[in-house]
């Protein structure tokens, strides 16, 4: 009996399949020979299990023999060697380290920022940096910037360690899925020598932790499924389930694509429950227990974990930073340095106030001493997110009779006609029948600041106050304007349009601030305003004051989620190296990470691993489709336990691949090759599953030999492309040989002809003379310039998504005023301006425009201040057709197709219209 193992191995169904054996199995018994192969027999023996009818359930994923533990240790050493090799090179910023290094700096400096990814992985990187004494002073500005006093190796170690830890997980997962040791070894070595995964795990990037936690989740989940088949509700059953939930939370807290892992586990759970439901021996009560246990561990636990991460995030980021502008005013108020002093609650005629737009985070109603280049050419009105004395307005009564009806304060009530004067320039908020600069549509009018000293203003300066809703706690606020409490609209008196703003930015001439228009069809939400601060000279110091209500954790959490979601969906810019999902499985193209000193780092997969995994996926689809068709025609393939087993294993892995890949097709945002890595992980496991199946009828020795050959090929491939992963020295000819596909666009011309040139050119002088400019008239035949071709043909750019928040190219946030400003000083200065404003109004306009113009700071300063003059002078110097060129310059990009509208006459017409209005309403003047 013991010599020939005749035991029917239980058809160990993989996760999700029914425990009930196929109903027909009794009628068509299997051949009994090949159920336990040598591996299994040995494993069974090592556990002391007698061959026989004993059911051997793989418990969790950790029951492997001691020999395998040793094997795992070896694998681990190999993996460490591959991933840690020369980790400190290059000693400069690579690709998205620009962002994630910067975020670490901000965590350490506790400056608030916003990113599209949840915080877990960034927190871990920060932790490493912090432990190694990083003070957050490095700015991670550009790719290629040399590191200076940054523990970047420690920071890179975080992804690297996660990358190493993924390898044994893949081994154990496959063992848990009842694959052979050889198969598991194959998968783990394929992963070890996958160039893209290696590259991605060597730099400060989030994908390596993401792949690790994905692998961890799948490992725990496979373990749980095995436990579940064995006996539910045991202690270890709970353990595996709980750990699955916890690591699900971790995946989701690294990147939102963790949602795909949740979907994988979720679908698998639903299938389990569905099978359980069909098992009539399970009473509903037990089924409910199953259901509740899974809901608890797989829904509640991850959510708590996820929220916990954000709690830490908020705790660390206590002070103001460049992410403020994306949050609501209440939120900003919780940040150190952004708090606001209590402000007077009452608003009356002659109050000085700042107005905020309710629906967007565009900020305050703002004006500055720059004019619209087109339209009426009057002074710009924008929304500006930061505090500035140019946000200050004074409110006047526009009704003639009502003025001075009593001596006391005259509150601003509903349906009151008012004017708003911009304090620092002395001009009034104005609208007229001219199309706005960007939203050039019929139902919108331009809003400008208009007026001059001694000019009383006209009826186009008048606005009706319409209170929309107040605050429940403040009954007064529905009747008259109260600071922070009343949401109101401003309706233009003559044209009936509403003061309006939306998330559309003005071009450069408007410092990319948000556009403000007057909209006849205004959506309610975008035409709501409120008063943030108000002061009145006649109000006593003890008059009632108000301030923002501080949001709690939930409110902050939900708001941040919303901001992240909207921004994520809005990342639709193109990047030189972005790609669409359909190109990923065939590895059409990589990503250029870093180019410097005639070496480069280029993210490209191991073509053999990559293409074999894709092949495995598609052969699974083909075979499974064939099996379905055959089943429909009455073939009984699924009575074969081997088919059932591999169908389960491969089906689960395919589900994982599919769910980590397909949803990208639905995303409009910009995508990169590295988004495929989690799917690639499943692809490699699936390929190993296929390998297990294909070799299942072979003798173990033959199987091992085949695996050995495959592994050697993979290692050779890895070595072939490794200079691109490590940024090692390479030669032009080797590089050109490695261009297997035309579309792989690493630039071979950057490499020297031989290795000797590296040593020769080791001196500091030789590097990157920018593109050898051909001086006009110089003698430069192309063949005489060997270096001309060598220009780094690609500008290496980081993933631009994060710039949305980082705002490096955004003069506006760069010009963000230093966070530590004495609050009182600001307020005082504001008050001083209000009181002295009248005196120095005329003279100080220019000065104010320079000093208070936060947005036109250092970077943009020179161009902005001289923009008008330079464009006019340059148009004069244009050799011909100079009259058109001014119009050309003013017409926005893309508008070239249609002739530029002459701007002059419109301005005249405007003046005429105003004259007419003055004649019509003489009493308004």
């Amino acid at each position, binding site marked *: 009996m013991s010599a020939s193992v005749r035991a029917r191995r239980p058809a160990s169904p993989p996760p999700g399949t029914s425990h009930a054996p196929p109903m027909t199995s009794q009628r068509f018994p299997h*051949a009994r020979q090949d159920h336990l192969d040598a591996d299994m027999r040995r494993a069974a023996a090592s556990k002391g299990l007698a061959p026989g009818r004993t059911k051997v359930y793989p418990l969790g994923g950790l029951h492997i023999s001691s020999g395998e533990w040793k094997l795992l240790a070896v694998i681990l050493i190999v993996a460490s060697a591959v991933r840690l090799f020369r980790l400190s090179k290059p000693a400069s910023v690579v690709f998205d380290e620009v962002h994630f290094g910067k975020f670490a700096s901000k965590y350490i400096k506790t400056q608030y920022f916003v990113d599209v990814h949840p915080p877990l992985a960034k927190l871990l990187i920060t932790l490493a940096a912090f432990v190694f004494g990083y003070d957050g002073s490095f700015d991670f500005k550009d790719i290629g910037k040399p590191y200076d006093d940054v523990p970047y190796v420690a920071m890179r170690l975080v992804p690297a360690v996660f990358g190493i830890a993924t390898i044994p997980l893949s081994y154990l997962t496959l063992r848990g899925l009842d694959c052979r040791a050889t198969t598991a070894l194959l998968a783990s070595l394929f992963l070890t020598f996958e160039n893209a995964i290696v590259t991605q795990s060597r730099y400060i990037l989030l994908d390596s932790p993401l792949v690790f936690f994905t692998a961890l989740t799948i490992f725990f989940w496979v373990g749980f499924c095995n436990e579940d088949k064995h006996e539910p509700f045991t202690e270890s059953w709970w353990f595996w389930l709980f750990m699955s939930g916890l690591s699900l939370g971790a995946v989701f807290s690294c990147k939102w694509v963790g949602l795909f892992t949740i979907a994988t586990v979720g679908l698998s759970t639903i299938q389990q429950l569905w099978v359980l439901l069909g098992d009539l021996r399970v009473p509903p009560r037990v089924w409910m227990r199953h259901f509740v246990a899974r809901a608890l561990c797989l829904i509640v636990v991850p959510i708590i974990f996820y929220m916990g991460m954000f709690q830490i995030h908020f705790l660390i980021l206590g002070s103001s930073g460049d992410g403020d502008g994306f949050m609501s005013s209440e939120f900003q108020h919780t940040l150190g340095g952004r708090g606001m002093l209590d402000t007077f609650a009452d608003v009356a005629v002659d109050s000085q106030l700042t107005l905020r737009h309710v629906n967007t985070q565009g900020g305050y109603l703002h004006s500055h001493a720059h004019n619209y280049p087109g339209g009426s050419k009057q002074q710009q009105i924008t929304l500006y997110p930061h505090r500035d004395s140019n946000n200050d307005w004074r409110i006047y009564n526009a009704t003639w009779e009502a003025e001075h009806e009593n001596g006391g304060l005259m509150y601003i009530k509903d349906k009151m006609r008012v004017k708003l004067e911009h304090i620092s320039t002395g001009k009034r908020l104005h609208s007229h029948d001219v199309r706005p600069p960007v939203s050039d549509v019929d139902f919108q009018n331009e809003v400008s600041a208009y007026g001059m000293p001694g000019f009383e203003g006209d009826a186009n300066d008048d606005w009706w106050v319409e209170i929309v809703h107040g605050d429940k706690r403040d009954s007064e606020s529905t009747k008259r304007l109260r600071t922070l409490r009343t949401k109101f609209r401003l309706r233009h008196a003559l044209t009936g349009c509403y003061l309006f703003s939306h998330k559309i930015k003005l071009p450069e001439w408007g410092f990319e601030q948000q556009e403000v228009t007057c909209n006849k069809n205004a959506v309610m939400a975008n035409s709501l305003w409120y008063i943030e601060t108000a002061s009145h000279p006649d109000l006593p110091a003890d008059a009632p004051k108000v301030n923002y209500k501080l949001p709690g954790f939930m409110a902050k959490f939900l708001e941040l989620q919303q901001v992240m979601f909207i921004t994520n969906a809005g990342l639709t810019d193109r990047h030189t190296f972005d790609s669409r999902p359909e190109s990923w499985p065939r590895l059409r193209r990589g990503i250029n990470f870093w180019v410097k000193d005639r070496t480069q780092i280029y993210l490209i997969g191991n073509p053999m691993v990559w293409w074999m995994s894709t092949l495995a996926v598609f052969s699974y689809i083909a075979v499974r489709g064939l099996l379905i068709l055959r089943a429909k025609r009455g073939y009984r393939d699924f009575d074969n336990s081997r088919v059932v087993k591999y169908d389960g294993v491969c089906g689960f892995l395919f589900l994982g691949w599919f769910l980590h890949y397909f949803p990208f097709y639905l995303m409009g945002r910009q995508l990169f090759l590295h988004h495929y890595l989690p799917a690639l992980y499943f692809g490699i496991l699936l390929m190993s599953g296929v390998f297990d199946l294909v070799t299942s009828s072979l003798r173990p020795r033959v199987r091992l030999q085949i695996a050995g050959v495959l592994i050697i090929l993979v290692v050779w491939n890895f070595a072939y492309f490794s200079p691109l992963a490590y940024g090692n020295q390479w030669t032009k000819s080797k590089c050109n040989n490695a261009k297997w596909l035309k579309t792989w666009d690493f630039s071979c011309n950057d490499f020297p002809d031989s290795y000797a040139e590296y040593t020769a050119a080791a001196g500091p002088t030789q590097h990157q003379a920018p*593109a050898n400019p051909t001086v*006009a*008239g110089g003698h430069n*035949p192309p063949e005489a*310039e060997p270096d001309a071709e060598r220009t780094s043909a690609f500008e290496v750019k980081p993933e631009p998504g994060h710039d949305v928040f980082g705002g490096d190219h955004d003069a506006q946030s760069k010009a963000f005023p230093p966070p530590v400003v004495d609050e009182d000083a600001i307020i005082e200065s504001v008050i001083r301006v209000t009181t002295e404003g009248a005196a120095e109004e005329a003279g100080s306009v220019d000065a104010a425009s320079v000093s208070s113009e936060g947005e036109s700071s250092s970077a943009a300063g020179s161009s902005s201040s001289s923009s008008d003059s330079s*464009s006019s002078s340059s148009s004069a110097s244009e050799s*011909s057709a100079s009259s058109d060129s001014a119009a*050309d310059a003013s017409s926005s990009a893309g508008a070239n197709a249609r002739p530029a509208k002459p701007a002059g006459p419109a301005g005249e017409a405007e003046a005429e219209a105003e004259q007419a209005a003055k004649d019509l309403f003489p009493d308004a003047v």
Partner: protein
Amino acid sequence: MAGKSQQTPRLRQRQVPAAATNVEYDRLRQDDHVADIFHQNPNTRHPIEKLLETRKASMIVVAVLTALAFALRFYKINQPDQVVFDEVHFGKFAAYYISREYYFDVHPPFAKLLFGLAGWFVGFDGKFLFENIGDSYIENHVPYVGMRALPAILGSLTIPVVYAIMKESGYSTAISAFSAAIILFDNAHIAQSRLILLDATFIFFMALTMYSYVRFQKLRYWAFSTEWWTWLTLTGVFMACVWGSKVNGVLTVAAVGIAVLIDLWDILDVRKDGHTMEHFWRHFTARAIGFILVPFIIYLSFFYVHFAVLIKSGPGDNFMSPAFQETLAGNEMLLNSQEIKYYDTVTIRHKDTKVFLHSHIERYPLKYEDGRISSQGQQVTGYGHNDTNNNWQIIPTKALPETGRGRFVRHGDLIQLLHINTQSHLLTHDVASPLMPTNQEFTTHPKDDRTRYNDTLFYININDGHDGEVIKSKAGHFRLIHAPTKVALWTHTKQLPDWAFKQQEINGNKAANDKTTTWFVEDVIATEGEDFANRTQAEAKQPKHMNFFKKFGELQLLMLQHNAGLTASHPYASGPINWPFLLSGISFWTESDTQKQIYLIGNVVGWWTCIIALSIYVGILGADLLARRRGLDPIPDPVRNRLWNSAGFFTLFWGVHYAPFFLMSRQLFIHHYLPSHLASAMVAGAVLSFILSETVNYPISVWGPTTRARPKLYADLGIKAPIIVAGFSVALGVVMLYFAPLTYGTPGLTGEQVNARRLLSTWTLHFAAKVTAEVAL
């Protein structure tokens, strides 16, 4: 896994006895399993219901419904006598058909051809172009009533078709009338079919498609009979009409396709009837012919007619390729295009952004803001306006004959371009362009200095050109490929900074075959030598001929591209999630003096009933699935099969015509939901029938020669069905009349009346009474 040879296939060797098969499987089989039917006694049936179920009564009901439909849709159809909403487009297209001028639109031509036909029939001369909403028809003498009658007729005829679908699917008269009434009294359907819009045609043919598919399906035991073939083909024909009316018709094709696939999947099942594969392939081929080949031929024929009618040059010319444009009589390209010779001075224009290739004396700054360095050569930019700096002379690189055809510039020639004003040659080299470090900088190089001669050489390649093809102005779209570096002359909409006067950047794109690298010669300014005057005299040219399939392919591609490009926002566009709940409508037309307006909004009672019915339907199926999983069997099999197959078919149409809109990023309007609404009305009927009784008319398929006899059943809804339906119809009618002023655009409403009709705050009706009172000056 594939080769499982050790197991012999058991196919065909046994006829599986029903009892031996899996119980679970048996439940899923259609119509066969009638074990748990209780016996009915016809004598207890209510006489009124009995009466209603007679053929005569059914005819009377449908006649009444149809008459009402015509009345509601033709009532004051001449009102308003102005252009309303999208009549701007579709009226205009009809006018183009009559004047035979070529136009371009994203929708296929069938419905528009019908409008053209209707317009021609009622004597419309095609002069009026429907320019603006609110233009008067009376003043312009447009026989608009005749044109509006077409959709109104089709819209009215939709009602009996809906009734017939329900009746054919086995529902009782009252239930069928219920579904028809939901459509009959629906304000949105009425408003949409009273105007010159495509939707009425679309919906009518979609209903016909459903009807003929149901008829086809009922004949499944009579496969390959003449009648079966007839309905099969008719389904295909109607499907093509739907597809030919609007691009959304693709969804109808998809819905029918899914239904057919499910059907075929059933036929493939060997355990069901034990059919052979040959049997399956016969079915497969028949459906391929009926549902793919026939519709495609008909769809093609619409375009054939379209091209046959539109033979003159019109507003759509510019969308098409030069070859296409030359087939249109009077086309500018056909008339003014001339062949270009060497030493001609020309202006060259970019096809996409329409800027001229331009250069001027100013030079690139040595150092850019980001620290990169330029060649400091003369600037080459894209400029939108006419200017002598746009003039370039084409210089040969080979010896030319003195006269004759040898002097023409041909496809693949190596040329130089000489900038006239600065007497320098266009050049590009491996220096990064000002804005894009990945692309090459363009500059010029003095004419006399031959040191960089190689860098000034460009191949001129006509798109899809053949050897020896002569470059023509306007018509010849070409690429300029730099000979040494193989980059293409390219421009994009980014502007250069002030030092280049904010003109557009021009650079060398390494992706030389990119679509956007296309340029053409706008004009020939001057020519070397004698015959400039002679050459510009265009002889009267005949339109050329072009293969129909080429034309068709080109137009299809363009339609697809433009449909995807319709993303501009519109004040009345709404997201799909709003539609079933009727959260927003569309303002079609307003007239301020009389406070009249047309606002497209559905009948709230009808729409909300439909969406409730759909959720009940999903709930029933879900509960039934769960119950069966737990071994319970709450619903009798014929009833369940009816729910799955018949109501499922309607739900499929609803879903397929609705869900894809969630994935589209183009402008969406509530009228895109109308086809789905039609399907949901039928679901509502099915659900009502299920709620009222556990009986169905059974079987409804035509018995085949070998079908075994089964006990007959009838739907016994009792007297309550007619009463409920009558009551419901009255409610629908009242609500419809209440909103009628918004649907018919007459009479005008006072502000308070408008406010009363504004049930949801999201409806943006005009002329609402001001909530905010005016304060006098």
